[in-house]
């Protein structure tokens, strides 16, 4: 996924405030956080000179649909169901040490990741260590994924 600067470069950079944000940079940050849509920037949609940039941004954000409320995305088309994230996730290990933590199929309902039909499904995402009051930048599931199918936005 692109970083905020790359997104900013694709925006009009005029700080016109038509979207309701103070600056284009603020819009870029919200776009990355999925709080606004690409179409919320009127000049980008309406003016012909931004057409190429508009399409690039749509491509970037168009394919991402099922974002969970905590910003965790599983790209189903990339996932091979290896279960590395299921076993590596510290929350899964804490909640299900003899199932998911030991490499076996999860036996608890409290796990975040679970493989169904060969694709990992995220649930109980509010338990994830990246969210809540004492959040930390945990990358256990991203680092261990061989196909880079998990992403946080």
């Amino acid at each position, binding site marked *: 996924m692109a970083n905020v600067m790359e997104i900013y470069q694709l925006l009009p950079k005029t700080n016109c405030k038509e979207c309701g944000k103070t600056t284009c940079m603020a819009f870029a940050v919200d776009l990355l956080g999925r709080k606004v849509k690409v179409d919320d920037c009127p000049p980008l949609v309406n003016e012909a000179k931004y057409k190429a940039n508009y399409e690039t941004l749509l491509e970037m954000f168009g394919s991402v649909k099922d974002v969970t409320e905590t910003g965790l995305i599983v790209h189903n088309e990339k996932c091979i169901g290896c279960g590395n994230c299921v076993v590596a996730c510290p929350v899964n290990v804490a909640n299900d040490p003899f199932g998911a933590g030991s490499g076996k199929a999860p036996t608890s309902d409290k796990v975040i990741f679970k493989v169904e039909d*060969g694709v990992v499904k995220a649930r109980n995402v509010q338990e994830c260590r990246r969210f809540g009051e004492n959040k930390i930048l945990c990358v256990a599931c991203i680092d261990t994924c061989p196909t880079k199918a998990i992403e946080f936005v």
Partner: protein
Amino acid sequence: MTGEYYVCTGCALLCDDIEVETEDRKLSKVHAACLKGVARMKGCSDPLECTVDGEKADIDSAITKAAAILRNAKNPLIFGHGNSSSEAQKISIGLAKKTGAYIDDTSSFCQGPIVEAILQDKLRTCTLDDVRHKADVIIFWGADPSNSHPRHLSRYSYFPRGKERQRGWEEDRTAITIDIRKSSTAKICRDTRFYQIPMSADAEFMDAIVSGLSGKIPKTSFDFDKKRILELANVMKKAKFGVICVGLGLVYSLEELEPLFKLMEKLNEVSNFYLIPMVGQYNMRGFNQNLFAETGFINRVKFNSETGNANHGAENSVVEALKNKSVDAALIIGSDPLSSLPLSVARYLTEIPLITIDPCQNLTATRSTVTIPCALGGVEAGGTAVRMDGVEIELKKIVESDNLSDKEILTRIMEAI
């Protein structure tokens, strides 16, 4: 969910923690299995039909015709077995003995040499459960389990917590990949633990590691960073329980196993190392063990039809037998040699009477005189199978099927001869 665990037959890992939901004699949902396993367990999109000479036929006439083909052949070939239960394999071996057939499986151009060395006690091996509970240094050599055995790392070798490895992969385990390309597994092991070597340089790299383990300066003709080899040798030396997962890349690269024996010997002098072959098909090792128990050889056997003696040799392998055109009929069980073997070798199969037993339609079946659909092993039929590390696993039947299991089909062919 049924609350009952089944075994996945997608690969030789035979994961036994699979829960399923069924609907109308089909699996509608599979829990915990990887994509590869799900694809196999959900059954084929194009099932095989029962045919004789390209025409639809009933199972009885197909079996009669198959038996006639084998009876009239002087030197039939029986090939496949990697996707059959041990029970079916044993009957297949009996059938080969009765008809004086060549009998072989995919191990003759796959993990055969390694499995043979293990069964002959020339290489030290352990079970995957030992790996999960104890292993601290895991080496994937010429193997990419992230693609070939997706759950290998998560179930046994790297990520899970075990009895003596309670702190997880970050602190308790070191995974190393030695390969000619940066595979998906290499990416997980990170750059510092990835050793990229040129093609066919595995034997030389092993010698370099042996030098490193002996305290000498490791030299290679491809000028590999000596410090990195010494670093690797050091990690191996300090291992409490090391395991080398041997992939096809290594097997194909070695002309003989001597360098591997030398490495394992040296490793066990200074450290504690085991070896596990990364077997592909779910019961290939089972076939090797069954044939070994019967004849003392793991594959490439030709039975004498009169005395029942087994001759073993490279000339009896499926590839050589087809190349020399020394077979005059073939029975293929759960395999697709026309797709998996080079066409120059496999083309001869289309010139002789061919029998295919398989759950799914495949290229070999389209060229077969007789095709007999069988129940899908581990889903529509039970039995036992041998995991890649030699542990026997019981397969349970999950759903009913109209098709006979390969064991029943082979038994009936045997009776009809």
